[in-house]
C-alpha cells in the first residue's frame, strides 16, 4: 500500500488548485462545510440584514422575520462557498486563506460548488415563498453580484474590485427592509449606500498590511497596483464621504437623535484614523494605523447598526418618538 493511497483514504489528496480531488468525494466533514459558509463574514451580514429588517416601518410575524434573517445568512454563506470554489487556487497562496477547506484538500472542489449553488437556490426560493419576491430578487442580485461581478469578473482584473464588488455586501439591510415593506425606498437605499462607501476604506486598510499576501496571489488590490500612498489617499477620500453619509439615516428619519449624534462622533473618529493612516510611514511601521482603522471600521458599522435597532425598539432612546427624524425631516 503506497503512501499516496493511505493519504487518499484519510485526508484526501492535496489538490490545491486543481480538480484531482475527485477521488476524495465525500471526504469532507460537517465542520468543513460550515467553514465554507465564511461564518465570520456572515455575522456582519446577518447583523446588518436584521437591522434593516428591524428599522423598516411595518409589521412582520416574528417567525417570518427569523426566516428572512436565516435566508440572508444562508445566501451569504452560499455565495462565500462558491467564492471559495472559484478562488481555491489563490487561497492556497495567501496566509490568511490557506487554512480553508479547499486549499487543505478537505473536499473536492465540485462539492463546494454544489453546496453553494444548492443553498443559494433554497434560500432565494424560501425568501420568495415566505416573505416576498422583491426581497428574494434582491437576495438573488446580491448573490449574483458577489459571485459573478466581484469574484469572477472584477477581483483579479482591477484595483477597483472592492469599490464595485462592495455593493454585494451592502445589500443585506436593503433585503431586510424589503422583507418587511415589499419594496425599496430612499431609507433602505441610504443603508445600502452606507455599507457601500464603508467597504473600500475597510478593505484597503486590511490590504495595506496584507499587501504581500495579495501580491503573492497576483490579486490587483490597490496597494499592490497603485502603491501605499495612493491607497492612503483613497482611504481618506472615502472616509470623508462616509462620515456625512453615516449621519443620513438620522437626517431622513430612519434613525433618531442618539444615532445621529453617535454617527457624527464616530464619523469624525473614522476620518481622524484615516488621517493617521495617511500620515504613517510607507514601510511596515505604517501597518499599525492601518490595523487600527480596520478594527475601528468594524466597530463603526456594528455601533451604527446597533443604534439603528435600538432607536426602533419600543420605549428606547429617541425611538419613543416614532417617525421623528433627528433633524425634523422625517415623513
Amino acid at each position, binding site marked *: 500500500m503506497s503512501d499516496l493511497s493511505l493519504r487518499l483514504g484519510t485526508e484526501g489528496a492535496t489538490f490545491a488548485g486543481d480538480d484531482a480531488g475527485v477521488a476524495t468525494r465525500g471526504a469532507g466533514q460537517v465542520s468543513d462545510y460550515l467553514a465554507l459558509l465564511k461564518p465570520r463574514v456572515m455575522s456582519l451580514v446577518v447583523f446588518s440584514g436584521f437591522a434593516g429588517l428591524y428599522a423598516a416601518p411595518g409589521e412582520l410575524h416574528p417567525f417570518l422575520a427569523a426566516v428572512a434573517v436565516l435566508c440572508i445568512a444562508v445566501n451569504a454563506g452560499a455565495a462565500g462557498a462558491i467564492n471559495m470554489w472559484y478562488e481555491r487556487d489563490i487561497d492556497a497562496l495567501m496566509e490568511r486563506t490557506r487554512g480553508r477547506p479547499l486549499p487543505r484538500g478537505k473536499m473536492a472542489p465540485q462539492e463546494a460548488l454544489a453546496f453553494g449553488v444548492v443553498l443559494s437556490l433554497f434560500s432565494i426560493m*424560501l425568501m420568495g415563498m415566505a416573505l416576498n419576491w422583491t426581497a428574494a430578487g434582491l437576495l438573488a442580485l446580491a448573490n449574483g453580484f458577489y459571485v459573478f461581478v466581484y469574484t469572477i469578473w472584477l477581483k483579479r482584473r482591477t484595483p477597483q474590485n472592492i469599490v464595485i464588488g462592495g455593493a454585494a455586501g451592502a445589500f443585506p439591510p436593503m433585503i431586510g427592509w424589503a422583507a418587511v415593506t415589499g419594496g425599496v425606498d430612499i431609507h433602505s437605499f441610504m443603508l445600502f449606500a452606507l455599507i457601500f462607501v464603508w467597504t473600500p476604506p475597510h478593505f484597503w486598510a486590511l490590504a495595506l498590511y496584507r499587501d504581500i499576501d495579495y501580491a503573492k496571489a497576483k490579486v490587483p488590490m490597490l496597494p499592490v497596483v497603485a502603491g501605499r500612498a495612493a491607497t492612503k489617499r483613497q482611504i481618506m477620500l472615502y472616509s470623508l464621504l462616509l462620515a456625512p453619509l453615516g449621519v443620513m439615516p438620522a437626517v431622513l428619519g430612519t434613525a433618531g437623535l442618539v444615532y445621529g449624534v453617535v454617527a457624527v462622533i464616530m464619523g469624525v473618529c473614522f476620518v481622524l484614523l484615516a488621517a493617521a493612516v495617511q500620515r504613517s510611514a510607507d514601510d511596515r511601521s505604517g501597518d499599525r494605523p492601518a490595523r487600527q482603522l480596520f478594527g475601528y471600521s468594524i466597530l463603526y458599522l456594528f455601533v451604527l447598526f446597533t443604534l439603528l435597532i435600538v432607536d426602533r425598539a419600543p420605549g428606547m432612546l429617541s425611538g419613543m418618538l416614532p417617525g421623528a427624524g433627528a433633524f425634523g425631516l422625517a415623513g
Partner: protein
Amino acid sequence: MTMTGENDNDRKRRQRIKNWALLAALLAFVVVVYFVSIIRMGGH
C-alpha cells in the same frame, strides 16, 4: 491492510455523520416551510 480498514471505517463514519446532518437540514427545511405556510394562510 489494517491501516486501510481503519481508514475505511473512519471514512464511513464521517459519511454517516454527513448523512445525518443532511437529514437534519432537510427536516428543518420541511418544518420551516410548514410553519411559513400556516402563518401565511393565517393572513399575515
